[in-house]
């Protein structure tokens, strides 16, 4: 008994010496710990600092412009002749408008396509195919933007100029036919449901035939109009919007696919168990549940198109004016990013001051808009989370 207890205490004592640190050791560890904390803090705050510095420096160089030329010309005049020797004009309205137009068009192209592709990847295609397709789509993000710009300039531009009308008509048919089939299917189903059971089948086919006829006529008419269209200049808003859309696609697809996958099996199986079809499950359960993720994907994609410089500089034509009429996306346009990239080389702080600072005013506009967008996205996502939380309770 005694022997055992002594061995026990010896073991305990040895353990204590191992567990308790000497004063020196604890000091060293304390310092190292602080150092580690400090290092991590510096690293984490460096990105924040970078953002603050960017803001500070851009504001510092943008303010002199507004002091020199005032606000009203910059935001209301469409005449941009900053390099003119005797009467420079600094109206950025056309450039601001063109930038918005290009971003909007790219968004209209990339967001629906990206989300549909993500739905297809997450819920429609077999898992094995998804594993192959998703990385391929993500490779798109790795292609440098100058390559996209080259593609837009050398392939798309001549294509638009030489076969523009036919290309547009082809695109119309490619989008129009599936939409037409779906519309015909759904509408004929809804309309024929009012008939008696016996007559329903016949009614359905007649309604479908009439609807399809109308739509085909519409497509033929519009297609004819489009194919007779001549695109004078292939470097235009449509061209870059398409390319920007393609560039933003991997972001949208990847983020929304993650959001859709994160919804989980339980919700889907619950929905199926209640007798919902696959389409109903997708549209009424999975997509609303992934809503905030899809929204974030859309914003990220739009931001990608919003900030892109190289492609627009190479292939948008860079005419600083509002297209006439304003929705004519077949005319050359100029964006803020392209203006900054193209004109920064010639200006200098020491001379031509207004021109130099006007470019920083543009940069400030870009920065503010993208910050507002990011904040809006953040706010929306948080709100959705809160609402979902309440629903769960």
């Amino acid at each position: 008994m005694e022997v055992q207890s002594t061995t026990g205490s010896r073991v305990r004592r040895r353990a204590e010496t191992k567990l308790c640190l000497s004063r020196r050791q604890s000091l060293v560890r304390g310092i190292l710990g602080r150092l580690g904390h400090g290092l991590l803090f510096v690293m984490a705050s460096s990105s924040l600092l970078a953002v603050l510095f960017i803001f500070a420096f851009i504001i510092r160089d943008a303010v002199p412009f507004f002091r020199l030329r005032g606000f009203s010309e910059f935001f209301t005049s469409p005449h941009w002749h900053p390099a003119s020797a005797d009467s420079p004009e600094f109206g950025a309205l056309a450039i601001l408008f063109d930038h918005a137009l290009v971003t909007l068009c790219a968004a209209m192209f990339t967001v629906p396509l990206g989300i549909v592709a993500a739905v297809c990847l997450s819920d429609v295609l077999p898992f094995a195919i998804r594993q192959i397709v998703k990385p391929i789509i993500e490779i798109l993000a790795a292609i440098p933007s100058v390559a996209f710009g080259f593609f837009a300039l050398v392939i798309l531009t001549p294509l638009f100029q030489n076969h523009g009308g036919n290309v547009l008509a082809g695109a119309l048919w490619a989008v129009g036919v599936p939409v037409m089939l779906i519309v015909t299917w759904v509408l004929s189903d809804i309309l024929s449901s009012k008939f008696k059971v016996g007559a329903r089948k016949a009614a359905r086919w007649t309604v479908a035939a009439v609807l399809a006829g109308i739509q085909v006529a519409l497509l033929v008419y519009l297609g004819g109009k489009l194919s007779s269209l001549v695109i004078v200049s292939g470097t235009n808003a449509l061209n870059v919007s398409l390319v920007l859309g393609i560039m933003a696609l991997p972001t949208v697809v990847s983020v929304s696919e993650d959001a859709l996958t994160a919804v989980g099996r339980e919700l889907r199986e619950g929905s199926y168990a209640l007798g919902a079809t696959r389409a109903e499950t997708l549209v009424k359960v999975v997509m609303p549940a992934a809503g905030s993720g899809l929204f974030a994907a859309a914003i990220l994609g739009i931001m990608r198109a919003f900030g892109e410089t190289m492609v627009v500089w190479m292939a948008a034509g860079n005419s600083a004016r509002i297209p006439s009429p304003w929705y004519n996306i077949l005319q050359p346009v100029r964006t803020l990013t392209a203006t900054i990239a193209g004109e920064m080389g010639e200006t200098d702080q020491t001379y031509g001051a207004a021109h130099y600072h006007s470019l920083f005013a543009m940069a400030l506009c870009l920065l503010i808009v993208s910050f507002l967008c990011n904040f809006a996205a953040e706010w929306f996502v948080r709100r959705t989370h809160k609402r979902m939380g309440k629903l769960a309770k």
Partner: protein
Amino acid sequence: MMERKSISKIAVAGLVTVLAVEAAFVVRTMAADDAKGSGKIVIDGSTTVGPIAKAFAEYYMSVNPGVTISVSESGSGNGAKALIAGSCDIASMSRFMKDAEFKAATDKGVFPVAHVVAMDGIAIAVHPSNPIAGRGLTVKQVRDIYTGKINNWSELGGPDLKIVRISRDTSSGTYETFEGLVMKNEKLAADTEYVGAQAAMRERIKSTASAIGYVGLGFLDDSIRALEIDGVYPDNNTVASGRYPVARPLFLFTNGYPALGGHVHAFVTLHLSRKGQEMVEQIGYVPVTKY
């Protein structure tokens, strides 16, 4: 503890190695600087003069193996900026320095000296299918096209096509020369398209039937058609003799006249040699010498 000790040992060993290598490098570069026939020349500036500077640099480095020459092409304005800031030895420029640039330079104690290395004609070019190509235009007609007074090729006796006006970006030296020699400082029409490089300009004209644009003589090839301006076709003879109206000298600027016998001096006088003339001709510019 053992692990930590070994790590620190490795770290110390690594540090020592790095220091040793660095010291060796410093010693070597110092030795190289002392040796005769070596040196470093930094050239920055125009994309138009760039090909000349590059060809000269390649040739010069092959003849003087100890010399390293770096050539950047960031635009004439940036070249001037770099020379004023002292970050380059030679600024290549496709235009003369502006008043403001000269002032900024002298304020900083930099005294720009111009060396004309070659002449460059700016060719007004259209698509080969354009019938105007056979007829040519006057400087005034070109100006009217670019200001937006003439909007359709039919107004000049060509086909009924809306004119697509293409200009170089406003920060290029080619644009400034065009603005000065053709536009006489009138403003370009708002729907003028801007491209960022000579090759992009050629690409746009080549692929657009109704386009008009301008490129340096060195960038002309069979895919686009240069126009006679005021009855003079742009070629070596008309540009060198000054008969072609849209031509300009190309410059290398140094801070003061370079020390005689130095590498910079040899470089900025290379164009006066037979080899220099050959290189200038090969690139497609017009030499200032006639051997």
